[in-house]
């Protein structure tokens, strides 16, 4: 495509960047005709996906512009925007795309010259870069996370980086990688039941429960951390490109299931029983092999209220000894 027909999309905050662009026009300043500005309330409004999508849809470059440091009209949206752009540039570099295709710069509403200079410099630089791979047809999903993944994967495939992705994690809110302490985990499944995004899933066969984690679905919400009764899970808010783009779904825990000696229902894992064995020392060992509902039936006590039960069991065993 001819250079002047290339497009560069600019996300400009309504308060400063857009106003500076207006003022540039009113002051008769020039910047390249390639620029297509999209107005946003704050530069912080600009979603990293929009920036990526701009490139994916065929723009040669995307810039995001906001207010000067400490002068954001909404507190610190410009800080978050700059963080997002740094994050995107790191991502692009990791998948083999020149990060120079995107940029952020700050100026006040009264700095039209700075705006048109920064814009001109960026457009000039971007137009001299080689053409980006055309991935337009591979981006289809309307789901935010899925579309993000599609764009990255398509680029990584086009550049050939997909087979040699960097192992270095890229820190970012909204993404998570869990670490599970194997000594603590009892494969109880609580994390899987509470996970909203299916990043943690449970697979059960007749005798086994297996737990899987898919990094690409994890939002780092830490529901699993709160759910875990043994404090076995920690979450790092970061992207690891290889499992992320490969949509890896890896087993991280598993244990044999225990069936109730009374009703044959699966009610616990071997690991759970090993963990709580000590608490049942005083009790008839038969109790431990009963499922909660059978315990209620058999013992006639609320299983959940374990202390009360233990007390009762204690007295019973003492009397028995007498």
């Amino acid at each position, binding site marked *: *495509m001819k250079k*002047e*027909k290339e*497009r560069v*999309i600019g996300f400009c905050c309504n308060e400063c960047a*857009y*106003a500076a*662009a*207006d*003022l*540039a*026009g*009113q002051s008769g300043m*020039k*910047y390249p*005709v390639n*620029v*297509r*500005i*999209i*107005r*946003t*309330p*704050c530069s*912080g*409004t*600009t*979603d*990293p*996906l*929009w920036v990526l*999508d*701009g490139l994916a*849809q*065929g*723009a040669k470059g995307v810039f995001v512009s906001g207010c000067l*440091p*400490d002068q954001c*009209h*909404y*507190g*610190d*949206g410009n800080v*978050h*925007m700059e963080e*997002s752009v740094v994050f995107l540039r790191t991502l692009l570099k990791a998948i083999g795309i020149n990060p120079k295709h995107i940029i952020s710069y700050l100026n006040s509403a009264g700095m039209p010259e700075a705006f048109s200079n920064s814009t001109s410099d960026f457009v000039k630089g971007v137009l001299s870069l080689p053409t980006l791979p055309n991935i337009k047809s591979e981006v289809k999903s*309307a*789901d*935010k*996370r899925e579309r993000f993944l599609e764009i990255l994967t398509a680029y990584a495939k086009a550049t050939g980086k997909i087979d040699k992705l960097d192992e270095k994690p890229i820190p970012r*809110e*909204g*993404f998570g990688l869990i670490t599970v302490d194997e000594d603590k985990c009892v494969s109880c499944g609580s994390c899987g039941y509470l996970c*909203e*995004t299916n990043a943690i899933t449970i697979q059960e066969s007749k005798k086994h429960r297996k737990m899987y984690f898919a990094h690409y679905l994890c*939002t*780092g*919400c*830490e*529901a699993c951390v709160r759910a875990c009764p043994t404090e076995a899970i920690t979450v790092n808010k970061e992207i690891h490109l290889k499992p992320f783009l490969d949509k890896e779904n890896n087993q991280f825990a598993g244990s044999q299931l225990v069936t109730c000696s009374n009703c044959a229902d699966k009610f616990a894992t071997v690991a759970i029983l090993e963990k709580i064995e000590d608490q049942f020392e005083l009790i008839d060992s038969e109790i431990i092999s009963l499922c909660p509902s059978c315990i209620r039936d058999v013992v006639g006590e609320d299983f959940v209220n374990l202390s009360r039960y233990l007390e009762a069991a204690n007295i019973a065993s003492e009397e028995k000894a007498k």
Partner: protein
Amino acid sequence: MTGEIKMKVGVFVCHCGKNIAGTVDVKKVSEEMKKNPLVSYSTDYMFMCSKSGQELIAQTIKDKGIDRVVVAACTPKLHEKTFRRVLQKNNLNPFYLEFVNIREQNSWIHSDMKLATIKAIDLVNGAIERATTLEAIDSTEYPVEKKVLVVGAGVAGIQAALDLVEKDIEVYLIDIDATIGGYMAKLDKTFPTNDCSACILTPKMNDAFTHPKITVMTLTEAVSAQRVGGNFEVELVQHPRYVDIEKCRSCYTCIENCPSKKRPNKFFDNIGTTKAVFFPFAQSIPKAVVIDQDYCLYLKNRDKGRDVCRRCEKNCPSGAIDFSQTKKHITMEFGAIILATGFEDFDPSIIEEYNYQNSSDIVTNSEFGFMFNVSGPTDGKLIRPSTNKAPKSVAFIQCVGSRDDIAEYCCNIGCMASLKHAYLTLKQNPDTKVYICYSDMRTVGKGYEEYYKRIRQMGVRFIRGKPSQIDVLPDRQLQIKVYDSAIEKLENITVEMAALQVGLRPSKKAGEVRKIFGVDPSSSGGEMNDYFKELHPKLEPVDTKAAGVYICGCATSPKTITSSVSEAKAAASSASSRLITGKITIANNTAQVNEETCVGCGACVEVCPFDAIELQGPIKRVAVVNPTACKKCGTCASVCPTGSMQLPHYRTIQILPQIKGITDKNLEVKES
């Protein structure tokens, strides 16, 4: 939202005379848009903003039944509102408008007609795609309490309170001090008219205290605040005064009987002492004594279980002394907050070469000024502290801790304050030799320059330079080394007293207050930056980022009484605008959460600059936006990993079509 009904988009391309049409082929733009299946009407027109242009849109809405309007013209900052009104008048939701800027950001920037036309086509095409996704936005009303909390009862706070009650709004006026009045109450005269500070302030203090709609609470501070609907729920803490204000008849019996004499007079910057039971100053309001628990013999010993003294209590004829008082917590709802926490003086001790701590004759300009106050620590007599006699010579040193490495900014009042003090000194003792060592005389204001000229004619010696050193000589005289750049000569002057015009700083508690009410600092980092940040330095000087919180007086920056009062009136006006109807209307385009898909990760809570988002729910947590606190910046939406948080009109499903529209037209463009 999309796809329910097939949208009918109308496109209107403005010539703006030759402004747009001179560089953009507007006919071609409107023709090109007709090819888009979403468009049911497209035209160009000479002046869209004119009455006939607006009528054209109105007519098209009626005749063609268009339900989304795309106007390509100047900047939306100019006419977006104009066209929104046209839509509203014609029974379309005003938010069904998409505005394209093809003048400021196209025709005025570029000169190649062909390329500028292509750019316009791209932009309008993007707007059409986005227009079809736009949702209607309505508004909701929230009730607000017609009740304002004014924090800080200096002249600014008092003035704001008095203005508010004029509008029938209830006010709670609180101050951490035992009296209201603030800094102005300590002054003797005010520049540039030399009117007596007490004469103009005390009537206002009294008006505020006695007004049935103003509740004055001294020794009180705000400790927490949260938004509830349109209101603020504020927790106030009132510290014990140990005196019943209602019963105290200010007869001085307690003060005469109090054996504890060594309490430094904190109200006048520790010049002189008071008893442990005292009046902050003679005209203090509320006019009731107060007991300082750090100096009261009974209170100091009470904790140790000993019962001593209580002579004030035993001798009080009206039984006003009440040692049973304790800290009171009060929680109340307010519709608006005005912060007027004022300033304090910079402590010059850290500037070693000025020897502030090594000579009692080196004072701050405030301390110097308090001596002229008839109800002040020296009963209105200027004395040299080391001899208790009138000084024979005085030097004022300007800009100490202002306009230097310690602080860049000007204190705004220093030049006039020193001129005033020079005047007062000469009025009391006409033979005194007075020097003013200044950097620049900044006497900008009504009547200020005239005042300056008058003082010059009184024989004050002005030295243009900042002293490098103030030495204390063995006979307690002060030797000041200063290079006078006006006559290019190093001066060595010897004086009996030196007054340092120190810089102004935000009051110590300003940082806490700022955080409680969600107001930004003026710039990041450092104690000096606890000046409150205004929403806009020129156009919204008393509004803040936190809707419903207003600022005035020296809490925003150093300023004169005149400016503080003006700002107080402005803040009162802004606050009353918010409350006057008893309800606030907020367009429902604050950030919205899809509760079904929200996973409660809290990324939005982390980034929200306005603390407008909370995670709620016992097990499944979801983000909940407080629409009265949300300022619609959309930062939350940009970090949401699942896309559950969205800002109306800036939803991903609205921006992505726009991007697609902008980049879509490749083939057709090549043909042209």
